[in-house]
């Protein structure tokens, strides 16, 4: 399979803080989920891949181009759709005008063709009915959908989506999954999210980023398998569990080393993620 993105030893620092620390990654067509807590370096990594920020160290190659070179950056941007974590908007623009504005920036020069494309992407995210409404009068979920619409202009080959489902209600999230599946077939999609069910539904591959480093890279099933035999249910919190919470049925879901004879259950992606994160935290703690 063709490699879309190849990064080697990429590091980005902000003062004394290392946001991304020597990351190596290869991305191919398909949807890859980027999981990690706040401050793990997900957005910084995505900004570098979206050619918005430059790494302090390491090499990035996207479609075989170097984003540090002006010509390479231009070629990458022609094939890229990027949704930042906190997309800003010209509040006085209507939905149509904003997407049209981004389409102009994406070199759609023919007005008729461009307007057809703007209407198409607004339709994909369900904003056709409010296309003339000012952005200042949109709800948070509508703004999030508008940000997704501008990503889809021209059906780009590479989509970088920083928490695209944040602020969407359950129905809108399902709609987003449908849109992503139909609007970007064959594209390389990298999306960060806190929603493990989004990862389960959308991603063929998941990367866990913790403290700026890759701690897991594999399929969602392989991530869940990390917690195999380490999740059990009990009527009360088990003191041996490293993490436990009450489920919808009122029973405690414990994660850790299970006691003999415990009521083991099959792990989810979330369980696997928590085990990976717990192991990373444990490894980084100084030895007693």
């Amino acid at each position, binding site marked *: 399979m063709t490699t879309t993105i190849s990064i080697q030893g990429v590091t980005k620092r902000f003062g004394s803080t290392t946001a991304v620390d020597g990351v190596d990654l290869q991305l191919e067509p398909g949807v890859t989920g980027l999981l990690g807590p706040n401050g793990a370096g997900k957005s910084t990594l995505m900004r570098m891949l979206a050619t918005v920020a430059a790494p302090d160290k390491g090499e990035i190659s996207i479609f075989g181009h170097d984003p540090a070179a002006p010509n390479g950056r231009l070629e990458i941007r022609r094939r890229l759709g990027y949704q930042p974590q906190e997309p*800003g*908007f010209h509040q006085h623009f209507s939905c149509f005008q904003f997407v049209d504005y981004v389409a102009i920036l994406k070199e759609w020069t023919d007005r008729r063709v461009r307007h057809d494309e703007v209407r198409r992407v607004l339709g994909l995210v369900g904003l056709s009915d409010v296309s003339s409404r000012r952005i200042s009068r949109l709800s948070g979920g509508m703004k999030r959908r508008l940000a997704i619409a501008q990503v889809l202009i021209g059906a780009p080959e590479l989509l970088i989506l920083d928490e695209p489902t944040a602020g969407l209600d359950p129905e809108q999230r399902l709609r987003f999954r449908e849109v992503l599946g139909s609007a970007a077939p064959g594209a390389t999609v990298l999306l960060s999210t806190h929603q493990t069910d989004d990862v389960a539904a959308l991603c063929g591959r998941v990367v866990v980023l913790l403290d700026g480093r890759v701690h897991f890279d594999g399929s969602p099933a392989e991530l869940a398998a990390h917690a195999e035999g380490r999740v059990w249910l009990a009527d009360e919190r088990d003191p041996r569990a490293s993490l436990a919470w009450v489920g919808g049925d009122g029973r405690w879901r414990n994660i850790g080393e299970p006691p003999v004879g415990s009521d083991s259950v099959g792990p989810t992606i979330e369980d696997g993620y928590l085990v990976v994160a717990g192991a990373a935290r444990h490894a980084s703690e100084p030895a007693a």
Partner: protein
Amino acid sequence: MSEWHVSDDMLLRFSANSGEIDEVTAASIEQHLTACGTCQSSLAEVSRGPELDAIWAEVEDRVDRAGIGSTERLLRRLGVESGPARLIAATPALRVGALSAVGLVVAAVVLISRATEVGEAFLVLAPVVPTALVALSFAPGVDPAGECGLATPLFGFGLVMRRAAAVEVLALLVLAVGSLFIPIDGLRVLGWLLPALAMSLGTLAGSVRWSAPQAAAGLTTGWAALLVLAYVAETGRDLTESVVFDPSGQFVFGLIASGACVVMVLNRQVVLQEVRR
């Protein structure tokens, strides 16, 4: 009914009435159409496309124009195409609020100059106006759609320069109108022009090392210090007569403006990085 029918291409050219068909052929087609139901239907079909296209384009144009802002509308009236007009009009300093503030400041300075019959106030303050507007346009994070726009092909040094030029031209036009009402004789009334260019272009060039607001603040402070020095050196004489506004002073400001352009072009990637932050 005739077995022969007019081709779609011929019908299209006939319906367009653009002179592509000679009169004899057109008369022949017309004669045929009166008797041939098939060709009448075909004519209706082929002529519908272009007509609908034209109507649709007109509707789209009107709808598009209805919702646009005043700056974008003005740019389009001046002949700028819809795409570039929208990109330039999105510059924060070109919003109606910012421009109104500039207009009010210039008007106030003009009124003060006329009331006191001293034109110095205008010459002293005019260069600060475009400098402040450039700083406002390119301050880090000031573009609300920044991140979405940054990762697009058209975002580059060319766009930054087009926006800077639009801001500069507008500020200079407002100041030029203001200078018509200043009580200074001759070309000295335009003594603000080259310092204004030097300071505003210097602000952009300064963003190679500092942020645009920092560069603007530094240059404005330098400008104030220069005027104080000139005032002291000329022992309190009219500032308009000082070296700052005489030909040699103006030549130096012209050199600074040119130098700022060279610095910007040579360091365009760094300027972009600053604007992108």
